[in-house]
């Protein structure tokens, strides 16, 4: 085997299945948690980057101060590891966040601990709704004088010639293709899967990178490897704040919800549940959302969010008016099956 080292750019969890050395390292990292009893420590799966900064300041440190429970982070976010640790009984993390697509699959697979929501309407598939993030259209201002307005423009390589990038994630990409094909935001769900793939065929030759990790999407936009990208809003602002000649639009932005979940049967159950409760309570969540430019989903948190933070939040009224929400419950097919088909489509 080769290529035994990787960066955060691509989620290293894969290498641990593939590469002896890395698996070994992971094994030693994981080892202490085998015998971990109900200690005063909690392991949280971290997205890194701007997410981690916001979470450390607003969630982890205050939680430790309030409860005395130390918070450790484990990177990167890995859906597979969540499954693997329930399967093996070796826990690397106790809590993690999942998006709307993954949480249904995770809950169906019995990977999530039953949980109560600390606030009304927060519970979905054994996850507690925490914050909203968006997939938005962003582009290089040194490439285009005219600003693209919507996904139809993203698909329009005549008016906007240049390399494109989208996330390698079927559940998020298919709705965008339908919008590009002229479907109205309110008529999207359930998705017309066939029509979406037909529309994707058109853009496929122009997609230079199907990005798989947040940091990677920032990098290719910042370095001008591509000219237009569908990117998470937080990762876009990272590129903008780094001084790259880039711009974005909230128009037709795709809002996803992130949920806190507790890994099934984790030995740190009590601390884990306590943390989820804390992280979705008004003040900590408001701080996290403010620092990370996320949209807080506990309505009670909104009063703690300062006005100046709102222009960068996907759920603030001005931005949300032009957005649509992923509707995983009414998605239009089995997301896992469609994801498999998407993978096959990519390789042909």
């Amino acid at each position, binding site marked *: *085997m*080769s*290529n*035994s*080292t*990787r*960066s955060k*750019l*691509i*989620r290293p*969890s*894969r*290498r641990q*299945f*593939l*590469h*002896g050395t890395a*698996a*070994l390292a992971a*094994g030693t990292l994981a080892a202490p948690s085998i015998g971990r009893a109900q200690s005063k420590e909690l392991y949280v799966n971290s997205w890194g980057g701007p997410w981690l900064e916001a979470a450390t300041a607003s969630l982890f440190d205050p939680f430790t101060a309030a409860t005395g429970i130390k918070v450790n982070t484990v990177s990167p976010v*890995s*859906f*597979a590891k969540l*499954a*693997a640790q329930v*399967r093996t009984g070796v826990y690397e993390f106790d809590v993690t966040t999942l998006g709307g697509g993954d949480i249904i*699959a995770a809950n169906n*697979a019995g990977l999530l601990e039953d949980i109560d929501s600390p606030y009304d309407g927060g519970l979905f598939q054994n996850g507690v709704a925490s914050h909203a993030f968006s997939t938005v259209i962003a582009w290089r201002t040194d490439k285009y004088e005219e600003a693209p307005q919507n996904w139809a423009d993203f698909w329009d390589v005549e008016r906007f010639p240049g*390399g494109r990038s989208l996330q*390698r994630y079927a559940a998020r990409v298919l709705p965008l293709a339908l919008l590009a094909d002229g479907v109205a935001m309110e008529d999207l769900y359930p998705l017309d899967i066939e029509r979406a793939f037909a529309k994707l065929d058109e853009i496929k030759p122009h*997609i*230079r*990178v*199907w990005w*798989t990790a947040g940091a990677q999407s920032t990098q290719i936009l910042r*370095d*001008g*490897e591509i000219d237009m990208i569908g990117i998470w809003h937080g990762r876009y602002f990272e590129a903008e704040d780094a001084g790259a000649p880039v711009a974005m639009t909230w128009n037709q932005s795709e809002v996803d919800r992130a949920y806190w979940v507790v890994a099934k049967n984790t030995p740190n159950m009590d601390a884990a549940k306590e943390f989820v409760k804390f992280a979705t309570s008004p003040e900590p969540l408001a701080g996290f959302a403010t620092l990370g430019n996320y949209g807080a989903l506990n309505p009670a948190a909104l009063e703690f969010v300062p006005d100046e933070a709102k222009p960068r939040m996907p759920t603030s009224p001005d931005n949300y008016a032009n957005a649509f929400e992923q509707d995983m419950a009414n998605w239009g097919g089995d997301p*896992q099956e469609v*994801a*498999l088909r998407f*993978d*096959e489509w*990519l*390789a*042909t």
Partner: protein
Amino acid sequence: MMRRMTRLVDHQTIWPWLLLLPLAVYLLVFFAVPLIEVLKMSVTEPKPGLGNYQKVFTGALYGKVFLNTFGTATLVTVCCLIVGYPLAYLMSNTTPRRAMMILLLITMSFWTSFLVRTYAWMVLLGNNGPIIWLIEMIGIADPPGLLFTRFSSTLAMVHILAPYMIMNIYSVMKKIDPVLIRSAESMGARGGSLFRHIYLPLTAPGIANGAVLVFVICLGFYVTPVLLGSPREQMVAGLIGNQIEQFLAFGLGSAMAVVLLVITLIVLGIYHSRFGLDKLWG
């Protein structure tokens, strides 16, 4: 192997084998056991049976990716040979000092981590990188993107794997008795004929060693194609990662890993029957 083992036990003390015990235990725990686990998963997940293997052999995607993996490994091996052979020849026919210098340059790149080299190619081949800049300087407006293509991933893999080829061929070339060449010349062999009948057959073991090593290592490549390659040219390792990471298809991923392993063993087996595996490491 067995023959050698009995001979060693017979003629030497038991001590060398005791010294190997920690290694054996280590291999058993960290290699054999997980491997058996993978084998088991491939026939038990999600339900017992050979369904996963059936999928690997009949699914259009998997066949395509396996073929692509072989195509890429072959291409990389051939490129390594084209680059490596002349370089090894140069090294074995120059002053020892110059040979040392070349060797040093090759090993320096060899010791640099995979990831650093892969990122270095990203910088070099990027839209704002020096190569695109050079292409533009010589007057080609709007040059094609070099990054995220089959070209960029092949180039980087050849760069990473060429040292294996060069070292193997060089070590064989160094051992060629110059007298053989001179006598061939005295018999009237010249240029192409000398190369075809004398030099090439003498270096063939080095080529075979280098080619097998490069090919087998390349089959399992992961990072470089994922970071530098085009999404259309996936390799098996990347696909296995995807099965597990995205679809939690541990069974299918394991089955693909087993198939890849068996194919690799077959390649090594063919090599073994022709040359003997013990020669692979010089």
